[in-house]
């Protein structure tokens, strides 16, 4: 059955036969793992701590190379150069922005976000002249989301994206993301908040600890 699926044309992001461990002496985090996220789908990654949820997200983002396996996008290898259709949002926005850039420079690093997007995230114009240390975590995270939602972004990896935020900002960011999801954006969601996961995700993918050497 799996052969039939892998032969058929599949759109969206897919990881094929991914294996990873941090060191030869350490157990495998996962071996031969298959994962796919269709356009307009939100997949929640669940599992105990140490199961490799964040590692998998970083592999899908292209930050870490898997030891074996491949990343496919719309049935072609995920491009390494140019604007990546797969974007990753960090948990701590303070680290994800250049502290010496203004808000305006940060938001427009990849493309100029539309007024509509800025309004949707309620990013006010005067933040664009401020530096990161003059903005709160919630404000920075909204800018980080705006900057990642480019026209070529097809998949967003949200690794505890709202864990450090107050519930109001969390709700606002997720409204925006769900709005984009309805227009075809794929989402991978990692969160400690069960209620959030059930509200946001279409299906769950449980990761187990892979303890055999």
């Amino acid at each position: 059955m799996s052969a039939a699926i892998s032969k058929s044309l599949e759109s969206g992001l897919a990881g094929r036969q991914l294996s990873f461990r941090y060191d030869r002496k350490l157990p495998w985090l996962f071996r031969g793992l298959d994962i796919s996220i269709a356009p307009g789908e939100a997949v929640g990654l669940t599992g105990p701590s140490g199961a490799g949820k964040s590692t998998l997200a970083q592999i899908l983002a292209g930050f870490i190379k898997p030891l074996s396996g491949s990343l496919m996008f719309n049935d072609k290898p995920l491009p390494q150069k140019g604007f990546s259709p797969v974007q990753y949002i960090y948990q701590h926005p303070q680290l994800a922005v250049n502290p010496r850039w203004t808000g305006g420079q940060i938001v427009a690093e990849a493309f100029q976000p539309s007024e509509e997007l800025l309004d949707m995230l309620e990013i006010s114009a005067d933040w664009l002249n401020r530096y990161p240390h003059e903005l709160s975590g919630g404000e920075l995270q909204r800018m980080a989301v705006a900057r990642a939602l480019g026209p070529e972004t097809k998949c967003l990896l949200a690794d505890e994206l709202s864990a450090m935020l107050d519930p109001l900002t969390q709700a606002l960011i997720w409204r925006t993301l769900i709005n984009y999801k309805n227009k075809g954006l794929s989402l991978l969601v990692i969160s400690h908040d069960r209620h959030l996961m059930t509200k946001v995700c279409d299906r769950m993918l449980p990761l187990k600890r892979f303890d055999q050497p």
Partner: protein
Amino acid sequence: MAEYLLEVEHLALNFYRHKGFAGQESLSPVVDLSLKLMAGEILAVVGSSGSGKSLLASAVLGILPGNCREQGLIKYRGQVLTKILRQSLRGSDIRLIPQSVSYLNPLYTIGWQLKQAALAAGVTPALVRTEITEAITRYELPESTLKLFPHQLSGGMARRVLTATATMGSPRLLIADEPTTGLDEDLITESLKFLKTLADDGCGILIITHDLSAVTDFADYVTVFIDGLSVETCQTETVVQQGWTTLKHPYSRALWRSLPVMDFWDGLPENSGRHSHGCPFASRCEGCQDLCLAHHPNISNTNEREYVRCHF
């Protein structure tokens, strides 16, 4: 009247620092904070990250930096907490469960640090050994943990070790600073269950957190903190059972309402329109009037334990 374990009345904290030759600037992260806690209860102080609520822990423990001026009153078991009293109580009666292992000394083993915590808590040297053994069995830590160094602990073990150091001897008041940050769901539940058990044993527990949804199942009372003001204290059970409409302050209503477990409502994001006078929520409040912009409202008590700070 019942005796409160901890009472904080109109606490205000101002920081002064030098700027230039004769200049000075002041910051007021805490403007007016009030709360009451009884033994055997869990009270959560909820506010967004970086809003200065962690300073509450420093104030109660008496470890505020020197350039900080404190106003208001902190009472412990009916007694005003003076500087000297805070010093003698911290580590014995009043304990802090810190946020992360970075609060432990990286150069010493866990065993050594547990021993120091026990001695500071007033455990007699002869009993230290048994006290440590009890603590690690209580939190299901293997004996080998004692030989490890802080950086060798996993997230879950770190939580247990931190809780263990804070529960040596017989504490009466525990302050947990962000006990859920950076943990996954199972560990959050575990970490809060430990606190619940301690409360059932008669400790008073003050949780300081930004994560309202994590503490709703465990805290008896929640105090909502925004831009230096505590705007409402409510009984958690009532809100969970009857919904956010039972709340009185528009900010806490919005906060509860936006939780994924409730409406996941997104009407009011945080905004940095900070002003020195008036209600911190005024700029986003639907019912805002001139009075709200002029000065911040005083507390009006709904009952002995619950209060709201709103002009209307």
